[in-house]
């Protein structure tokens, strides 16, 4: 199918949510990397999913609105995902790059609703590293509505991601999950935060296809 797009409200901004595949039951949500946008069709590694396959354009990316004056933080992008949760309820999430980091945060914050997460390679997976990068402050002119928003590229490539901070979110997920392994790492590139997550008890490593298949909900009998 060609993707179908709807717009969700995030304050005064609109978020583009694309349906890549229709289906019954729980949704699979795809989160793209930094500076990217949602795919046009269902990726091959999501073929096993029986429910709807959704893909969200983060604020300032793809067909979503661009805020005035930046101010991006991964924690704010959690709210983008939370808008999808408000509309669709329980989800499993596959996050690429920046989307992997946001997937972990929102899974921790909404641990009773996000059923499982798959953390995959992609743009923006390292952020600014485990400690603040060298100081750099630049005033940019207003950017209009084109995406990706340069403020997003600047700010979301400099946010700090300490390993122990990531592990707090792992704990939130593991404490609430009914699954044995609600967090799966598929990424081969492992910044500090992701290496720590992958090494945690309760987190497993699988290929993307295997990871998605592992989260397919059992059919009701």
């Amino acid at each position, binding site marked *: 199918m060609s993707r179908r797009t709807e717009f969700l*409200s*995030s*304050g*005064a*901004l609109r978020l583009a949510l694309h349906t890549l595949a229709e289906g019954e039951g729980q949704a699979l949500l795809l989160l793209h990397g930094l500076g990217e946008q949602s795919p046009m069709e269902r990726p091959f590694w999501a073929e096993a999913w029986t429910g709807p396959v959704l893909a969200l354009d983060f*604020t300032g990316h793809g067909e979503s609105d661009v*805020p*005035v*004056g*930046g*101010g*991006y*933080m991964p*924690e*704010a992008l*959690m*709210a983008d995902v*939370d*808008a999808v949760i*408000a509309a669709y309820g329980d989800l499993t999430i596959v996050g690429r790059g920046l989307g992997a980091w946001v997937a972990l945060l929102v899974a*921790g*914050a*909404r641990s009773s609703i996000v059923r499982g997460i798959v953390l995959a390679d992609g743009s923006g997976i390292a952020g600014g590293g485990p*400690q*603040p990068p060298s*100081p*750099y*402050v*630049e*005033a*940019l*002119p*207003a*950017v209009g509505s084109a995406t990706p928003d340069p*403020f997003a590229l600047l*700010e979301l490539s*400099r946010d*700090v*991601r*300490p390993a122990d*901070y990531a592990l*707090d979110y792992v*704990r*939130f997920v593991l404490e609430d999950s009914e699954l044995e392994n609600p967090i799966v790492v598929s990424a081969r590139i492992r910044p500090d935060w992701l290496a720590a997550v992958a090494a945690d008890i309760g987190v497993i490593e699988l290929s993307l296809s295997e990871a998605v298949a592992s989260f397919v909900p059992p059919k009701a009998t």
Partner: protein
Amino acid sequence: MSGLGCQFVPDNDEMRSFPGARPPDRTGHVDSSGLRLAVNEWGDVDAPMIAAIHGGFDFSRTFDVFAPMLADGGWRVVAWDARGHGDSDHAHLYSWAADVRDHLAAITALSDKPVVMLGHSKGGGQLLDLLDGRPSLAKAFVNLDGLPSQFSSPDVNDRERRRMRRADLGAFLDRRRRRNELERRPDTIEGLAGRRQPMNPRLSREWLEYLVTVGARHDDLGWRWKIDPVLHLGGFGPWRPGWSMDHLAALEMPFLGVLSGVQDDPMGWKSRREDIAPFLPPGGRLEYCDDIGHFLHIEQPRYIADLVLEFLEPFK
């Protein structure tokens, strides 16, 4: 500076006065990447400039007593409202880094020469970041109780810290979901002042009521704080106090830090002299005020103004 008018127009004729408080001599705005930041100025426009940065949940008119004292000491004091605060635009997104960038935009719009920078609380902390990255902006830096050291209280164990973070996360997302419905609750001047009192327990009710009339707007239902209702106290994130202290140690300009010694002020940062002293930049000066709370420049404006004026005298 472009865009500054010469008059102050109150929102409502029900105004209050406060001893020593003076409205700004000039008001205007600057642009930061499409956002309008409201600017207030006191003092001779040709005098050397102090850029004054307010703290979180404050606004530039909280300098209404302190800034005139500096202005009377021969300085042009310029302060702006942070995004979402006071008369500045509300933004879609808020972050520490965005505030820092707004400060850069304002300073470069207001002066093409190095200026004195003065920041209180969060404003002081943000200037640590800005001036580590852009030292050429400042010829001196005054930090009023904006030097963090004990953000993670040692009295809180890991389990409790995680529980608090989780509660903060849920509250943040819930608030964002309701963003379109949020509004500041209307009240009387006395009611609004009373609601602010827990944040400012050491400040007089007379001051807080004055603050309402310069920091809130009046509509048919009463007075409401202007601050964006999506903003809230506290927060979460990976930030560590030590990162700010590294910025302090790297500063290259003359530095005066003034710490509150009152450890139970609810808005205070609770840093002690011994926490900060090892990170002072070369030649940096640290003053510790045992009996003054976090809002040093409001609680004891004459004492703090004299301290600042004496420190800044060589930089006129």
